[in-house]
């Protein structure tokens, strides 16, 4: 009898690698489409920068959340508490250094802000370590319990923040040299927004480097696809996951400092409020995709600002509308993460 299996395929019949760049194109398309709508070039520049700055901060906060989900199928509904923690730590550090923050010298300002960021990153990271151990580890693989327990973790976390800093809002003024705007022709771009864009790009760059060029990054990308195989190759995925969780919490802490300075005031509830925004961003990006998260965050930031100028009432719902539109187009989000 003839073999019923087909002959071996020709070895060089391999499809070319074609990365999906369509979602990436959304950004320039959106930015350009907004130009005629806003009416003036200077307004457009201002709004675009505001949107990019907001998007970058959201990205810093959301990247850890989406990565943790991609790696471990754990969605931390309590992620927001690390944002709040970072922001309150900033008030504590900067509040003690008013002499330096009120100085006109950029060096002195930075000497105050950098320790605040460092404190936020370190403490949020450490709390993340405890959070993973106490809250998340016992409920791996049980989505229902995970949702509830991380929510519970957030309640306790927020209450503890209230114990330390009190329940009321605390002002977080920008250091003197960060205030005001640069003028590009007629367009005014707030200095702090420029800083936010730079920090955001730096985080994105660092993250891309770690994920794309280092062995740890390789392990993370492999772990997102097949956890068991990574373990079978001899790597402790549990440790890797803790590392990613801690890094994600630390980034949320950093994002909290940035967000607090952006809002110039912090409240214990801020984390919970941003949570919704974060979920929208990672749903848009495709759960688990860092690149998608980056694009999603910038889209959300830009659209919020354009819509806020063009149709303030619509702006309140622009994120939801964006999410619905993206999901109708790509039900898995911009970049779906393939799992075995």
């Amino acid at each position, binding site marked *: 009898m003839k073999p*019923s299996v087909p002959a071996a395929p020709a070895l060089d019949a391999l499809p070319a690698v074609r990365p999906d760049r369509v979602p990436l194109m959304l950004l320039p398309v959106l930015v350009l489409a907004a130009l005629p709508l806003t009416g003036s070039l200077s307004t457009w520049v201002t709004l675009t920068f505001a949107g990019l700055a907001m998007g970058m901060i959201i990205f810093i906060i959301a990247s850890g959340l989406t990565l943790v989900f991609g790696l471990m199928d754990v969605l931390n509904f309590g992620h927001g508490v690390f944002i709040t923690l970072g922001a309150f730590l900033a008030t504590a550090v900067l509040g003690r250094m008013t002499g330096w923050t009120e100085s006109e010298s950029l060096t002195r300002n930075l000497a105050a802000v950098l320790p605040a960021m460092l404190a936020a990153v370190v403490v949020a990271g450490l709390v993340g370590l405890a959070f993973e151990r106490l809250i998340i580890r016992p409920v791996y693989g049980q989505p229902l319990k995970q949702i509830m327990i991380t929510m519970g973790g957030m309640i306790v976390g927020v209450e503890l923040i209230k114990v330390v800093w009190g329940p009321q809002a605390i002002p977080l003024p920008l250091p003197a040299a960060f205030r005001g705007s640069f003028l590009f022709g007629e367009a005014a771009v707030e200095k702090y927004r420029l800083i936010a864009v730079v920090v955001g790009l730096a985080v994105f760059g660092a993250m891309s480097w770690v994920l794309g060029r280092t062995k740890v990054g390789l392990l993370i990308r492999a772990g997102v696809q097949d956890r068991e195989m990574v373990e079978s190759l001899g790597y402790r995925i549990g440790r890797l996951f803790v590392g990613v969780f801690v890094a994600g919490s630390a980034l949320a802490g950093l994002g909290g400092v940035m967000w607090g300075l952006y809002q110039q005031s912090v409240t214990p509830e801020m984390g919970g409020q941003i949570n919704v925004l974060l979920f929208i961003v990672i749903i848009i990006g495709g759960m688990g995709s860092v690149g998608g998260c980056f694009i999603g965050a910038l889209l959300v930031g830009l659209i919020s600002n354009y819509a806020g100028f063009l149709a303030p009432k619509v702006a309140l719902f622009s994120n939801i509308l964006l999410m619905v539109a993206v999901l109708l187009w790509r039900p898995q989000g911009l970049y779906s993460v393939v799992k075995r």
Partner: protein
Amino acid sequence: MTFALETKELTIRFGGHTAVDAVSCGFAPGSLTAIVGPNGAGKTTYFNLISGQLKATAGRVLLHGEDISGSSAAQRSHRGIGRAFQLTNLFPNLSVLENIRLAVQSRAGLGLNLWSIWNSHRELIGRAEEVLETVALTAKRDMAAAALPHGDQRKLEVGILMALEPDVFMFDEPTAGMSVDEVPVILDLIRALKARRDKTILLVEHKMDVVRELADRIIVLHNGALVADGDPASVIASPIVQEAYLGVEVAK
């Protein structure tokens, strides 16, 4: 003759892989057909296409001559296709009786009744108790399904199928993993069912002595395609079966 169940050119592809490849086969009312083939031949996938857990890429499924290709798994269940699963698939924290009772309730079409009290339907419970008796699980009626030993879980799986009273029974390796002394209970049930000659039975089974004893007819699947079909004696004579089971002869 109208077949009780018939598949026409039934095909499913996953990516580039054709798991079931244009299988056309009719099953006569009252017959017992064994489906054999090696691991990965597509037997369970073929079952999934018939019972509606998977949607075919191409081809049709006919039940009593009527096209049911577009129906969901739930609708096919209502129309009389009953399926027992290869891997035991129960409601783990519900009691043994409740597992069966839910099947009886589905059969009675009472699922959307919001107003009556479930245990006021004595007839459903009675029927469930009867089924428990036939699969020899009466003594364990109040245990949680997950707490049963493996063999009893297999019996419960078959019991759920009995309770649905389908026209077409599909058994996917009903005796897998059962200890030797438990196997006869299941085989007796299938034997009794066959003796009634009013139900159509499809059986995937690896134990060839079981197949030889029970089947009216054997079909062989290999790499998703139907490669042999006939009464046990002629299929047995076919060299294709040897090949299917031992693998493609490779040059030495």
